[in-house]
């Protein structure tokens, strides 16, 4: 396979995985107006739960893909009910600080439960190996990630534009008081949205598990990446998350291959450039002080 082709494929699978994770961060910000610093930790938790379900309990990958995110979503409900409810009415800096505390707690818990070593999850039989498409061999798992990303993209689009629940979420994002007046239980919406965001992070974690080795630092890496994605795309914007994720995917896919000396610098450079010229992100609204 040609260099450009494989870099492109690589960019796409990194990008769509990032989309799944970052869109959760963005939805939570859009409705709750908090930046969830622990989003990456929830992603990591999804991956580690999948590891336990697959390697220890012996479940098939698909069952883990269903159950692990569900577990993380339940945890998110508890986090919302017992911690976040205190700070919803406060300054946004407080939510950054509280979720940062949460990140420390989850990171260290993962280290205590699963150890600081590296863990590996095997992809399911069906997705192992590679496929021949148009004369070139492509890892089947990359295709799976791309298909999952596109499926979630379509699902989210449908949810937000064609269902009642999606409309309620958008209403709560636009004007929470008005939604309350219209007999929408915004308390329930807030909890639901936070759990949904955590679910998306964990789905990303399970999908990432067979691609990347698991270690307790994986959440910190992904949260920075997700910040870059939402800043490039626009905070709170759904299409922005997709655009930002694809751009960052391309930066990783091509940067790692063609500019190895500066590849660590490139994502941050991209983020800073976007913030300079479009401070609210390519698709965002309202940011300058």
């Amino acid at each position: 396979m040609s260099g450009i082709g494989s870099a492109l494929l690589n960019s796409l699978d990194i990008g769509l995985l990032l989309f799944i994770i970052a869109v959760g961060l963005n939805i939570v910000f859009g409705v709750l107006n908090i930046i969830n610093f622990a989003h990456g930790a929830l992603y990591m938790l999804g991956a580690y739960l999948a590891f336990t379900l697959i390697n220890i309990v012996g479940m098939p990958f698909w069952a883990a893909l269903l159950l692990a995110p569900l577990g993380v979503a339940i945890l998110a409900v508890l986090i919302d009910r017992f911690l976040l409810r205190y700070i919803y009415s406060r300054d946004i800096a407080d939510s950054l600080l509280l979720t940062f505390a949460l990140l420390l707690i989850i990171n260290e818990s993962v280290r205590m439960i699963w150890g600081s070593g590296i863990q590996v999850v095997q992809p399911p039989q069906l997705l192992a190996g590679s496929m021949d498409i148009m004369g070139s061999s492509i890892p089947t798992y990359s295709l799976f990630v791309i298909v999952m990303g596109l499926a979630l993209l379509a699902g989210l689009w449908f949810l937000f534009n064609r269902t009642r629940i999606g409309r309620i979420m958008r209403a709560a994002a636009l004007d929470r008081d008005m939604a309350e007046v219209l007999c929408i239980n915004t308390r329930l919406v807030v909890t639901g949205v936070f759990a949904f965001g955590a679910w998306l992070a964990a789905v990303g974690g399970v999908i990432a598990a067979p691609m990347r080795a698991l270690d307790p630092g994986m959440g910190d890496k992904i949260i920075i990446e997700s910040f870059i994605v939402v800043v490039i795309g626009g905070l709170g914007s759904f299409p922005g998350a997709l655009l930002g994720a694809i751009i960052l995917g391309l930066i990783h896919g091509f940067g790692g291959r063609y500019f190895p000396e500066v590849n660590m610098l490139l994502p941050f450079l991209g983020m800073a450039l976007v913030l300079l010229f479009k401070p609210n992100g390519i698709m965002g609204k309202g940011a300058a002080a």
Partner: protein
Amino acid sequence: MKIKILWALLTLVIAGLIAVPWIASYFYIFIFTEILILGLFAASFNLIFGYTGMLSFGHAAFFGIGSYAMALVLIYLEWPFVVGLLVSMGVSALLALIIGFFCVRLNEVYFAMLTLAFGMMVFAIAYQWRSVTNGSDGLAGFSLGSFGLGLDLTLANPAVYYHVVLAIVVIASAVLYLVCRSSFGMILRAIRQNPERVSFAGLNVRTYRLVAFVIAGSFAGLAGGLIAPFLRVASPELLHWSMSAEPILMAILGGTGYFLGPFVGSAVFVLLETWITSFTESWMLVLGIILALMVIFFRKGLLGTVLDWWMEIKK
């Protein structure tokens, strides 16, 4: 009356700090050196966070660049220690001017993220520019020469170095305190409370925020210049965003509303870390729980809560 008691208390604390090398073990000399340096780092951060209301996640960039500047000066130029500190301050002030120029135009969340991005850019450069920074290993193997100013001090002696750090931190804090007390400091506090009102009053909010950012950066650089000879290495970890989180934690822990809050936070942070890590590895878990409780219930921090309570009862 109460202010007098507080000043007397502060004098006592400083006297106690001066006496540390004679009354405490070697181990605690190191601990207290670290507390003082990180306290200065946290206090410089609090100028932009507690006073001006800008939550930066990239403050370690200035701390780290200060330590690299010091290491490079000691390795290649062999200038006196004091000159090295001035270089550290100058270099980090320059970096703060560049980063701040871009960052101060953005509000809260975007400011936090852009400072994070710039901080990680500096980290990435230090990590990948091996010929100058020695990559992930960092710069080590520099020897401490003379102090400068005609003073004959053996900086390699931990007790002497502790006293040097104490003197510099006290002087730097006094300067920072005067900045906070000045009319400039008042304007910063007004900006935190209501930037719109301040700009309606005819003041350029961005300029004030930028100046605060540069001052904070240069003092963080000074702290960085002090930490490199203490750790005997300037490594990329000093620039990483997790290092930027430390002054945030310290400021919150001690209290952002009082000038000395970050120092109290630094002392609590370092002492807790030392004691807790001696019997369990999960120091970060404890820290996370403490931080969560502080944010939810004691947003004023330890010093803030205690002082406010004391001011309240004895009218």
